[in-house]
C-alpha cells in the first residue's frame, strides 16, 4: 500500500517522539526572514543597478564574434547586431555571466557532492560547529534568511542555489535578454550564489571532518616539490573535494601508513587534506601539476574535481602511474570498477592492463589507493621512470633549439624560454631556474616547438637542482574568523591602526611568477594591513623566504588582527572572507542580517575597507568569486590576465554626480569622494597594484584616523613603487586631520599652491577646498529605504 498525497487523520499515537529543534513565535519567524529571503534574479536587481551605475561595466572582447547558434557566426563589431538581435555589450556580458555561472556551479556542485556524502556518513542532524561564532553561516543567513543549525539545514540552501543556476543558465539561450546591464545583474546574482555554495561546502566539512574551527594557531605544514620524500611510495591527490580523500587518510591512519607512504596533495584538496590530517604534505598549486607528474615521482594519482588538468590520465599513463578517478566531473573514459573487488582492481592496475579506474565506492578508494601505492612504489622506483631527459639528452635538446621564439609567443606569460635554452646549451642553468619559478606549468610551449622539443620537461630538468630545494611552510587553513577576534580587531579598525584588509586569493597564473604576491603580502603586512589568503595563493605565499630563511607564515601569526597573515583554507573557504564583512555589520552595527542582502552590501560598500587581489586568476571560479565580492560591496583587483574575463567594473571619479550618497539620518544628499573607486579592475604590474590596493581601502565612512592612515599608505606606496605622488591624493582629503602626519606641512602647501585650497597657516587648518566636511556620524547609504523614517 502506498500513502498518497492527501489529508489523513491520525487516530492514535503511541510512543511517538517528535523532535522539535527550535520553537519560534510566528512574529519572530516572520521577522527572521528579512526583506529578500532566497532572492529571485530580479529581487536584488535594484541594488545591482545602483552598483552598475557607479561602477560601469567596461568590456574587453576577447572574441568579437558570437557563435552560439546556427545563424552565426555573427560579427558584432562596429555596432552591428547579431542574427538574434544581440549587440556586442550584451553578448560580452552574457559570456562573462556564463563563465561565472560555470564557476558557481563548480563550487555548488562540490558542496552538493560533499553534503550528500557527509549526510550519508553523519546524518542530517549532525550539528554545525564552526568555532566561536554567534553567526555560524553569515552568507546563508544574509541570503536565505534562515539560521542553519545542522548540516541537513543546508539541503534547501543548495536546492535554492541549483534552481537559481538553472534559471540563470536559461537566460543564455539565443535571443531573450538584450540588456548588458541585466546580464551583469545576473552575473552578480551568480556570484552571490557562489559565495553561499562555498560557504555550505566549507562549513559542512569543518563541522563533520574535524577541521580547524576558527583557529588562529594552526600548525605549519611542509609545502613544495622538494618537501616530498620520493624514496617512499608517493600517493598524490589532485583536486578540490576531500570526500574520497578523507577515506584514504582514515585508512592510512588506521593502518599506520603515514610513515610508509608519502601522502601529498596538489591544489585545494591539499589544503583540505592538511586541515583533516596534518601528516599530509602539499606539493603546491595547480601550476605544479604537470611538472610533478612528469617528474615521475608520484606512484599513484587520485583525482576528484575542479582544477585538475584534463590530461592527467594521458600524462600519467606514459609513466605507468595509475589514476583513480572518484567523481562524476572527471572520468577520463575509465571503466567503472565500483562493484569490483579491491584486489582485482589492484591487480589490473599493477599489471598495466588498465591505466586507471573509476571508483565511486569511497571505502574502496580508501583501501585501494594506499595499498596500490605500496605496491607501485618499489616497482616504479626500480624502473626509474621519469619524463625528464637525462643530462646528455638535455644538452642535445637545448642545443637543437633554433631560437625561433614560437614557445615565447605560445607562453601565456611570454617567458623568455629561448634565452634560457641558449644559456643552458652553454652550460648556464640559472635562466632555467628563474624560468621554472615563473612558469605556470601549462605545457602549451610543448605544442608550439617546431623542433618537437618537450620544452616543459627541459625547463624542469634545467631547474632540477632548484626544485629539489623547493621547500616551504604553510599554516594550515583556519576556517572562519571567530567573533571574538573580530570584536578585538574592531578597535584597530576604528582607531585607524589597521588600514584595511587585503585578501590575496585565487589561482597561480601570475604574470611574472609567484614572488610578486609574496612581495605584495610582505609590504602590506609591514604596513599593518590584515592579509587573508586561501587556495593556490596561500600555497605560493609559503614558498618564499626572507634572509633568515623564514616564510611569511613563520614571521606573521594567524590571528585576525592588524599585520597578521591568515590562511583561511581551500578555494571554498573564500566564503569566510566575504562572510567576515557580514559579521562586522552584525557585530558593530547590530544590523539584522536575515534575508537582508542589500542593506548589508550597502554597509560593506560604505564602511569596510576590504579589497580582494586575485593576481593570478585564471579560472571561472575565480571570476565568480570576484563577482560575488562585488555584489557584496567588496572591490577586487585582478592581474594583467584579468581583461580576458572580458569585463571590468570601473568607477569614473570625474563623473561627480555618480558619487552622491544619502545620509541615512535625514536623507540629505552628499557628494562624496570616489571611495572605493572601482569594483573590478586589472593592474598591469606589481608596482601599480601596491598603491591601488591602498586606495581601494578608502570608504566614505572613514573617520579621520582611518583616512589618515589609509592616505599615508596610498601616498607612500605610490611614491615608493611608481615614484610619484598620486595625482588624485587630494580628493581624499576632507580635513587637515586626514593628512599623513609626517608630510602634513608639505601637503598643506601643495593643497594651497596646486589646488587653490585655503589654509589657515597659524592653526594649520584647511578652510576651503574639500568636497565635503568630515563627519564621523555621517551614515552613507545608497538605498533610499534605509533612510530614517523612509516608508518601504
Amino acid at each position, binding site marked *: *500500500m502506498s500513502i498518497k498525497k492527501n489529508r489523513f487523520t491520525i487516530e492514535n499515537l503511541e510512543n511517538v517522539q517528535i523532535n522539535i529543534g527550535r520553537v519560534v513565535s510566528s512574529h519572530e519567524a516572520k521577522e527572521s526572514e528579512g526583506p529578500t529571503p532566497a532572492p529571485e534574479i530580479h529581487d536584488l536587481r535594484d541594488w545591482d543597478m545602483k552598483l552598475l551605475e557607479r561602477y560601469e561595466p567596461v568590456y574587453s572582447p576577447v572574441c568579437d564574434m558570437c557563435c552560439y547558434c546556427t545563424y552565426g557566426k555573427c560579427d558584432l563589431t562596429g555596432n552591428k547586431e547579431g542574427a538574434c538581435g544581440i549587440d556586442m555589450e550584451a553578448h560580452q556580458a552574457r559570456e562573462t555571466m556564463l563563465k561565472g555561472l560555470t564557476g558557481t556551479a563548480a563550487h555548488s556542485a562540490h558542496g552538493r557532492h560533499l553534503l550528500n556524502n557527509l549526510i550519508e556518513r553523519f546524518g542530517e542532524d549532525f550539528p554545525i560547529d564552526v568555532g566561536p561564532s554567534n553567526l555560524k553561516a553569515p552568507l546563508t543567513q544574509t541570503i536565505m534568511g534562515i539560521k542553519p543549525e545542522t548540516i541537513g539545514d543546508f539541503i534547501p540552501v543548495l536546492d535554492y542555489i541549483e534552481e537559481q543556476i538553472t534559471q540563470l543558465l536559461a537566460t543564455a539561450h539565443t535571443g531573450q535578454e538584450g540588456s548588458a546591464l541585466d546580464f551583469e545583474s545576473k552575473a552578480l546574482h551568480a556570484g552571490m550564489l557562489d559565495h553561499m555554495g562555498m560557504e555550505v561546502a566549507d562549513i559542512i566539512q569543518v563541522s563533520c571532518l574535524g577541521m580547524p574551527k576558527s583557529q588562529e594557531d594552526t600548525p605549519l605544514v611542509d609545502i613544495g616539490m622538494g618537501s616530498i620524500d620520493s624514496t617512499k611510495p608517493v600517493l598524490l591527490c589532485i583536486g578540490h573535494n576531500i570526500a574520497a580523500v578523507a577515506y584514504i587518510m582514515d585508512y592510512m591512519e588506521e593502518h599506520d601508513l603515514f610513515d610508509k607512504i608519502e601522502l601529498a596533495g596538489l591544489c585545494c584538496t591539499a589544503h583540505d587534506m592538511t586541515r583533516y590530517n596534518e601528516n599530509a604534505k602539499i606539493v603546491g598549486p595547480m601550476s605544479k601539476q604537470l611538472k610533478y607528474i612528469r617528474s615521475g615521482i608520484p606512484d599513484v594519482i587520485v583525482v576528484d574535481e575542479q582544477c585538475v588538468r584534463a590530461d592527467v590520465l594521458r600524462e600519467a599513463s606514459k609513466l605507468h602511474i595509475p589514476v583513480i578517478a572518484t567523481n562524476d566531473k572527471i572520468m577520463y573514459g575509465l571503466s567503472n570498477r565500483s562493484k569490483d573487488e579491491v584486489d582485482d582492481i589492484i591487480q589490473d592496475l599493477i599489471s598495466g592492463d588498465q591505466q586507471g579506474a573509476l571508483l565511486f565506492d569511497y571505502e574502496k578508494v580508501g583501501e585501494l589507493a594506499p595499498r596500490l601505492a605500496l605496491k607501485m612504489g618499489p616497482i616504479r622506483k626500480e624502473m626509474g621512470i621519469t619524463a625528464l631527459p637525462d643530462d646528455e639528452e638535455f644538452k642535445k635538446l637545448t642545443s637543437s633549439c633554433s631560437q625561433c621564439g614560437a614557445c615565447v609567443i605560445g607562453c601565456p606569460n611570454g617567458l623568455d624560454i629561448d634565452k634560457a635554452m641558449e644559456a643552458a646549451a652553454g652550460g648556464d642553468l640559472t635562466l632555467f631556474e628563474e624560468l621554472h619559478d615563473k612558469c605556470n606549468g601549462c605545457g602549451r610551449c610543448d605544442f608550439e616547438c617546431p623542433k618537437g622539443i618537450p620544452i616543459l620537461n627541459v625547463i624542469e630538468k634545467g631547474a632540477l637542482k632548484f626544485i629539489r630545494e623547493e621547500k616551504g611552510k604553510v599554516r594550515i587553513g583556519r576556517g572562519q574568523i571567530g567573533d*571574538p577576534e573580530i570584536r578585538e580587531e574592531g578597535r584597530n579598525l576604528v582607531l585607524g591602526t589597521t588600514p584595511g584588509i587585503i585578501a590575496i586569493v585565487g589561482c597561480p597564473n601570475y604574470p611574472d611568477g609567484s614572488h610578486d604576491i609574496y612581495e605584495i603580502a610582505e609590504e602590506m603586512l609591514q604596513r599593518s594591513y590584515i592579509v587573508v589568503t586561501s587556495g593556490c595563493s596561500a600555497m605560493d605565499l609559503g614558498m618564499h623566504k626572507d634572509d633568515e630563511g623564514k616564510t611569511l607564515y613563520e614571521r606573521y601569526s594567524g590571528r585576525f588582527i592588524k599585520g597578521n597573515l591568515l590562511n583561511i583554507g581551500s578555494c571554498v573557504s573564500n566564503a569566510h572572507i566575504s562572510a567576515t564583512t557580514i559579521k562586522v555589520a552584525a557585530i558593530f552595527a547590530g544590523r539584522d542580517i536575515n534575508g537582508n542582502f542589500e542593506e548589508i552590501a550597502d554597509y560593506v560598500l560604505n564602511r569596510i575597507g576590504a579589497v580582494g587581489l586575485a593576481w593570478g586568476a585564471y579560472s571561472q571560479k575565480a571570476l565568480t568569486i570576484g563577482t560575488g565580492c562585488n555584489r557584496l560591496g567588496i572591490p577586487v583587483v585582478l592581474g594583467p590576465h584579468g581583461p580576458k574575463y572580458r569585463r571590468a567594473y570601473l568607477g569614473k571619479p570625474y563623473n561627480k554626480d555618480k558619487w552622491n550618497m544619502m545620509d541615512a539620518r535625514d536623507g540629505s544628499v552628499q557628494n562624496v569622494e570616489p571611495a572605493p573607486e572601482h569594483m573590478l579592475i586589472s593592474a598591469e604590474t606589481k608596482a601599480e597594484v601596491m598603491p591601488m590596493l591602498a586606495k581601494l581601502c578608502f570608504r566614505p565612512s572613514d*573617520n*579621520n584616523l582611518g583616512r589618515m592612515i589609509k592616505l599615508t599608505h596610498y601616498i607612500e606606496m605610490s611614491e615608493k613603487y611608481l615614484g610619484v605622488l598620486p595625482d588624485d591624493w587630494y580628493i581624499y582629503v576632507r580635513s587637515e586631520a586626514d593628512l599623513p602626519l*609626517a608630510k602634513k606641512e608639505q601637503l598643506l602647501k601643495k593643497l594651497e599652491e596646486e589646488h587653490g585650497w585655503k589654509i589657515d597657516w597659524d592653526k594649520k587648518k584647511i578652510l576651503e577646498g574639500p568636497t565635503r566636511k568630515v563627519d564621523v556620524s555621517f551614515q552613507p547609504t545608497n538605498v533610499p529605504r534605509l533612510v530614517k523614517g523612509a516608508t518601504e
Partner: protein
Amino acid sequence: MADEFPFEISPMFEGERVRKDDMYVELAGPKSKGFELVNAVGIDEIEDGKFTLIGADISEMEEGGRYPLAMIYRIAGELVETDLEAIVERRNHDFQNYIQGMMHLNQRYDVWIRINKDAIAKGLKSFEQIAKATMMLFKNELTFIEKIEATYITDMEKVDEELAKAMDKYAARDERTRNLHDEDVDTFYGCSLCQSFAPTSVCVITPDRIALCGAINWFDGRAAAKVDPEGPQFAVEKGECLDETGGEYTGINEVAQKLSGGEYNRIKIHSFFEFPHTSCGCFEVVGFFVPEVDGIGWVDRDYAGNAPNGLAFSSMAGQTGGGKQVMGFLGVGINYFRSPKFIQADGGWDRVVWMPKHLKDKILEDIPSDIVDKVATEEDAQDITALKTFLTDKGHPIVERWSSEEEEPAEDEPITESDAFSMPQVGIPAFDPAMLKNLTPMTGGCGGVKVTLKNAKVTIDKVILSNQK
C-alpha cells in the same frame, strides 16, 4: 618637512625590530638607564624647535655600544595643561617607531631604544635629527602644542639626576589619575569614533569610566577634544546630576539623544540594568545577568568556554553589541573593573558572582578584598547549581539578597513553592520583561494554543492506516 631627514618616517616602520646583529647602538633599556618625559610649561619659557644635547651624540658613540638616554620635551600653548602631559608623552613611542631604523620599546622609565646600522649608513648621526622629527610629529598631530623644545641627555650622571625628578613627576601624575573622579570634573568626553562602523554607538568617557574599547580614557578624550573640538572626541558638559549612584547627567542624556539619532535619550553610566551605556562591538568584556542568583557574571573575549549560564562570550556578545542599549547585558573595558564606581547602581562588586579565572587574575588587586574570594571562576562553578552552592558556601553578599527578597514577596505575586531553591523574584526597577526573553525559559500556555510545525521532522516507527468510515 619630511625630506630634511636622512630617514623615512612612516607607520610602516612601527613593527620594525632591531636585532643585536643589526644594531648600531642601544640606548636606555634594562641594562642601562633612561626615561622619557613631557613637561607643560609657560609659552614664554621655551623656544620652539630648540634642541639641547647633554652628553655624547650618536656620531661620538661606539658601534655596538650601550648608553643611557633621557628625552625631555617641554611643550607650551594656550590649551596646553599638565593633565595632557601623559597623553603627549605616550606618543613619543609611536612617533619614534615611525622612524626607519629606530626601535622604541616601552614607556616612561622603561624605555629601550635601538638604532640600526642601516640608519647610520643612510646619514643619521645626531640625536638632533631624531628629536626634530619627533617634535614635528608632535606638533602635526597634537595641534594644541604651539611650541616645543627637547633636551636629550646621554650623560649618566645627569640622567640619574633628572630621572629622580621624573620619578616624582610620574608619581604625582598617577596620584592625580587615581584621585580624579566623576564629581571632580565639569566635563566628560564623548567619543563617536566607532560610528564609522557602529552608527548609533555613543561612548561616554568619564574619570571613572574608560571607553569600553579600553583604548581611550578621560585624559585622552580631553587631549583629542583640544586638538579638534568638533572632532570625534568632544567635550560633554555634565549638566545636572539626576542620579548620583547610577551616574545620570542631563548633559549625557542630551548627547545620547542627539548622537543616537533619537534611539535613546537616557544613559546611566554606572548602571547595569537601568538605561545602561550602549555597547558598540569591541568591548573587552561582556557582563550578563544571571537571574537564578540575581547576580552579574562577566566573560571576556579570550575565554573560549561557556559561562555558567551555558553561553559563550560570542553568543552573549552577539546580543549585546551593535551600538544599542541592551538590558541584561553590558559591554565594558577591562579598566572599568578598576573604577570605584563600577556598576554602583546595582550594588557594585557585591553583585558580581562569576568571571573567568584569567580575567579575575588580571584585576585581582582591584577587587575589594572582602569579595575577592567570593567571586566564582570556571574552576569553582561551571553551571548554575554549582554557582549557587559556591556563593552560599562562601557567604557571597548576594545570598543575603535572596533571603531578604524572599521575606518580602511582591504583593501581587503569589508565592510559589520550589522544592530545591527558593528563587528570588528578580528585583530590577523599570525593567522590561521582554528584555529577558533570552534568559527565562519559555513557559507553555494551555488551551487555545495553535501549534504550527515548520520544517519539523517527525520520526515514526510505524504508521497504521485505517479507512475512514
